[in-house]
């Protein structure tokens, strides 16, 4: 069953200079997919366009059978899309519990306390001090709060934009361990990541984006050979894919 479909998606900040130049792929329900590519390839722009934060100039985004192209981000959240931006992904001036309470507004009232409790159980670091300002959390804890917030509403598709960016190797390990637990619950995961090794270890399938176009779509095993990925990043394979 298909969770997410992109058909010839074009997106960016200026219609005359699209950053995502006609990308198509599908993600099955429960699948974990990573999106790789060199800096400036359009990975973050693409994921933001899916999340309703960057304008789409052409093509389609479908969530299951529903077309959601250009839908405002708050309606996408209500339609089952969880998105964790790379930076500024929590409200630092609100407490940990308030961050979760805002997301919980999407749920029916009786379910809210149970889901917040479930998230605090899943992330014990957050449960220890729920009234503390989120701005006081460490980098890793912030990513956990961001993931908890996104998971709280039990999204059908969870998208994360470089969750390991700026974290120490130890914290990266913690974040990916958390993502593995999330993936094991059956949530469809779409992960944009620069940490190729960790992303390949976590996901089943990799999409490689080069210059706004899809240069590779296949199982992650193939990409464990660094030379293949290097060629993709440097353009040789991308040129072949484009022919």
């Amino acid at each position, binding site marked *: 069953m298909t969770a997410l479909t992109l058909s010839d998606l074009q997106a960016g900040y200026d219609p005359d200079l699209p950053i995502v130049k006609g990308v198509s792929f599908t993600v099955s329900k429960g699948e974990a997919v990573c999106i790789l590519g060199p800096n400036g390839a359009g990975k973050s722009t693409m994921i933001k366009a899916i999340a309703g934060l960057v304008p789409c100039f052409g093509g389609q985004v479908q969530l299951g059978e529903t077309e959601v192209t250009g839908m405002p*981000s708050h309606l996408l959240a209500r339609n089952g899309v969880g998105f964790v931006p790379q930076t500024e992904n929590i409200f630092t001036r609100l407490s940990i519990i308030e961050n979760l309470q805002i997301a919980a507004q999407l749920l029916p009232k009786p379910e809210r306390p149970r889901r917040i409790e479930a998230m605090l159980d899943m992330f014990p670091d957050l449960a220890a001090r729920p009234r503390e300002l989120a701005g006081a959390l460490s980098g890793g804890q912030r990513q956990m709060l961001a993931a908890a917030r996104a998971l709280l509403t039990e999204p059908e598709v969870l998208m994360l934009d470089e969750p390991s960016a700026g974290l120490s190797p130890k914290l990266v390990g913690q974040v990916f361990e958390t993502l593995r637990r999330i993936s094991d619950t059956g949530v469809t995961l779409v992960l944009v990541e620069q940490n190729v090794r960790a992303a390949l270890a976590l996901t089943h399938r990799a999409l490689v984006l080069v210059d706004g176009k899809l240069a590779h779509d296949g199982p992650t095993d193939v990409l464990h050979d660094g030379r293949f990925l290097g060629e993709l990043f440097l353009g040789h394979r991308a040129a072949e894919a484009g022919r």
Partner: protein
Amino acid sequence: MNPQAIIDGLIAGSTIGLGAIGLTLTYSILRFANFTHGDFLAWGAYLTLTVAGVLGGLAAGLGAPVYPFSFGWGLPLAVLGGVALTVALTLGLDRILFRKLRARGADTIIIVMASFGASMALRSLLEFIFTAKPVYFTNALQIAKPLGLGMRATPDQLMVIGLTALMVLGLHLLVTHSATGRAMRAVSENPGLAGVYGVDVAKVVRVTWIIGAGMACIAGVMAGLLVQIRPYMGFDLLLPLFAAAILGGIGSIPGAMLGGLIIGLSEAFAVQIIGAEWRAAISFVILVIVLMLRPQGLFGRKEA
């Protein structure tokens, strides 16, 4: 020094603080200095006066003063109508002007200039409809009662101070303890992320306009009740309103109120110490000092 300055300052500060709350909310959520806010005060006062006139025409008894105040039951009822009309005016202005500019991604300076132009238009329209001649909610005279320590105040003045305290407390609780308040604080910090969290940012903007307009209307009625109603009453308050909002820290409701009280008290003491002609300069002096020494204000956070 005459201790009456304390009462005078608290009364002036109540109006300034209430007006500054609306200003600070729209500034923190819509991210522009809204010059029309002062005119919302004046429009709120005139619209309430109009509704009071209609009510007085329908039931003459509503205008009779209720002891110990100088006004009758018609005024509180008229305030409800005045608030509703001021909210409608504000939402209408947002729809035809500010929302279109936001949708186009206009720079902040463009939106500020647009608000400046709209402010002049609103003020001229008031003068055109109601003329520049001052008008009053009531002609009844009140005798100030002694409060002790050489201070005196009329019942209307004490009511204004008490009502302001209640409204500030209520609004503070709304913003800090309700889902609406959490959403407002979230949009104030990061509107894009608020959308990702599922917050309907457009709805939060509407709620902000509604609260700001309601506060402006009530502040205008208070100023009109204690002094007089003039088309320029809001414009004259604009600098103290901005000074109070910036002094308190943009986005902080208690800050705006405290800022208003500080400005009101400073003006009242300035009248006694250096003369009434310097009263208007005090807000400007405080604004400059705050911007130089603590630009984030008393309760504001320093930008990273």
